[in-house]
């Protein structure tokens, strides 16, 4: 579908004016802003009504098994997400960052990755984590406050969550440059990297620098931007006048907007983008047009800044419901199967809850561990002094 040249040519005639992304205040008030279909360039393979549609450039077939698998993934990650949200409400977690509404974007992208590919998440990528074999349990420590991420990012090829907005985009670029420098790019067996960030993040200098670096070093990197329409209380218009995917052109690589609530489109476009990268045609920007259906985090009150009409409109585009309709209408799954998936989800949630209840607090010395790779006598002395001080409280309230 692409050759790099296609994206380094001047803008074709007829492209909408830059201000086209700006809604009128009437549109915003009517809750129409975010529910516009995402524009004519939006890649969609499954409509909100569950209808399979065909796209000239992404004419992909999915087996029944694949379709059921994607549905199951989404149901399970949503169930884990809701359980974690409830656990926070009950005081078991300090904070939770919901993924509700972004299941299709994340499962599509995550299932497009191969085991040897690398992924760099932000902090909301619980669905991608799932696809990398990181169980929801492994994520809980960070939000309960027992660790900063418990998995081995090197072995799992899934970096730790990054909270500082945009930082991970440069780290991912460097990793992808390394894949290229090591000759792992150029054929069907090539490696690629995918980095996840939000619409708000696109304003950060780090993200723009990553676009520049990835492009001049032909890095095999897919920039996967989940435009969930909000950066806490700020709508996407606070960050851009242009549809975000169109930014890629300015840096000389392809940008494409996909229906982020359509798991088939997200998977197909992500696979294509990763293929491009494996073959040395990276980088690629994907803008997954989706919606944050819950508050920003459990600390946030979204009613202060957005209309409930908007949420109601997006509920009609629910990423899971459309697959469910498609599966049942086409006889790909029956009642029993749906019930079995639901039972599996409930079991996952119960296990998650049990796990969180039993997560041990870390030992005091943990905070001094691994600060440096090599011995540091100053820190060692600090640690010993503090541990001996703490031992004077043994049996006491400490």
């Amino acid at each position, binding site marked *: 579908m692409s050759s790099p040249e296609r994206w380094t040519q001047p803008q074709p005639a007829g492209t909408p004016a830059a201000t086209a992304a700006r809604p009128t205040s009437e549109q915003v008030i009517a809750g129409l802003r975010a529910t516009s279909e995402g524009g004519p360039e939006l890649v969609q393979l499954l409509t909100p009504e569950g209808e399979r549609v065909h796209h000239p450039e992404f004419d992909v077939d999915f087996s029944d098994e694949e379709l059921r698998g994607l549905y199951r993934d989404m149901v399970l990650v949503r169930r884990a997400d809701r359980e974690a949200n409830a656990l926070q409400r009950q005081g078991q977690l300090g904070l939770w960052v919901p993924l509700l509404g972004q299941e299709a974007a994340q499962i599509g992208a995550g299932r497009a990755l191969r085991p040897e590919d690398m992924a760099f998440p932000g902090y909301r990528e619980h669905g991608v984590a799932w696809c990398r074999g990181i169980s929801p349990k492994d994520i809980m420590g960070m939000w*309960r406050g027992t660790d900063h991420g418990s998995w081995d990012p090197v072995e799992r090829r899934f970096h730790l969550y990054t909270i500082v907005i945009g930082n991970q985009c440069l780290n991912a670029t460097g990793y992808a440059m390394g894949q290229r420098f090591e000759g792992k790019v150029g054929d069907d067996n090539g490696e690629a990297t995918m980095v996840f960030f939000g619409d708000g993040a696109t304003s950060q200098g780090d993200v723009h620098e990553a676009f520049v670096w990835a492009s001049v070093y032909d890095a095999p990197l897919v920039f996967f931007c989940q435009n969930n329409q909000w950066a806490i209380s700020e709508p996407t218009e606070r960050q851009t006048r242009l549809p975000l995917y169109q930014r890629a052109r300015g840096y000389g690589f392809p940008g494409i907007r996909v229906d982020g609530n359509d798991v088939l489109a997200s998977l197909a476009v992500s696979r294509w983008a990763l293929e491009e990268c494996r073959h040395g045609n990276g980088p690629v920007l994907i803008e997954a047009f989706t919606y944050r259906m819950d508050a920003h985090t459990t600390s946030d009150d979204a009613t*202060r800044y957005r209309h409930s009409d908007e949420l109601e409109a997006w509920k009609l585009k629910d990423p899971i419901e459309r697959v469910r309709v498609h599966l049942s209408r086409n006889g790909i799954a029956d009642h029993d199967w749906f019930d079995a998936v639901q039972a599996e989800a409930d079991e996952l949630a119960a296990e998650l809850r049990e796990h969180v209840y039993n997560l041990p607090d870390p030992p005091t010395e943990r905070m001094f561990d691994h600060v440096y790779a090599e011995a540091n006598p100053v820190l060692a002395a600090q640690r010993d002094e503090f541990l001996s001080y*703490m031992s004077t409280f043994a049996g006491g309230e400490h």
Partner: protein
Amino acid sequence: MATPTIDRPTSTESATQTITIIKGLNMALRACMERDPKVIVMGEDVGKLGGVFRVTDGLQKDFGEQRVLDTPLAESGIVGTAIGLAMRGFRPVCEIQFDGFIFPAFDQIVSQLAKLHARSQGKIKLPIVIRVPFGGGIGAVEHHSESPESYFAHTAGLRVVACSNPVDAYWMLQQAIESDDPVLFFEPKRRYHEKGQLDPTAQPLPLYSSRVLRQGTTATIATYGPMVRTCMDAATAGAEDGVDLEVIDLRSLSPLDLDPVFESVRRTGRLVVVSEAPGEASISSEIAAKVQQECFYSLEAPVLRVTGFDTPYPASKLEEEYLPDLDRVLDAVDRSLAW
């Protein structure tokens, strides 16, 4: 020490009222915006939401979108554009959402904000305030509990202050906005909801001055920001055991106003410096160095420090151990007394 003369801010209110730190900051912003149309507020989520801590609540509604800017998500952008706005005569008050997110702006702060007055031989004044909720103790995830003030105190050209209570929050923020120098304004987020009695007709202390909060004879404690409450509690607990602590709220971290500390140490002979920030190469080291220089013959014991450890801020289940508490403060006092 000499402090720049700042007009005493006026207040539109007159009756004494109970306020929190958040309320004090909000009132201060409102008062400054009413007095001076060039005062603008800028930051992430400060407009419609009123800030994640609601410090700017209601300001955009009352002053409009051109005076309360919900900015793009870019801290270097917030400070960098504030510099340009200040060159054009505005007095921007920037909000950095959490301590750990000031670093994307570090370059603009140390390379431009701190240096332009000197480089332009005083022709460019940058009356910019950067508000930073700082410190831990709120059970937050990474990057939301840090104490980065020493980086800025280490940088010539910046003024650095930290309020510890609602009344200071109210006065100090107004004084900072009226200062012609850039001010890093640190707010103790875990004390945000603590209450105090504001008498708007009272005379505030100058901005760059410390304050003796409690007089005592046994030893001196110098501290600032969120640790002020901890040290006052330690003094109350110590008093039950006959330990009479003098507690000084430093308030200004650059310049430091150490005269009251010197004067106190000459009487008590003992000093414990307390901060959440790690101790290595920090404001607390600076205080120890200066006090040893000025009060050498009065000291009965070396200056001791109780600080956060020189580690990354730990996962929140360990923050109680990481943060100096009442016991660690009193333990240091005991060690000083036993010297």
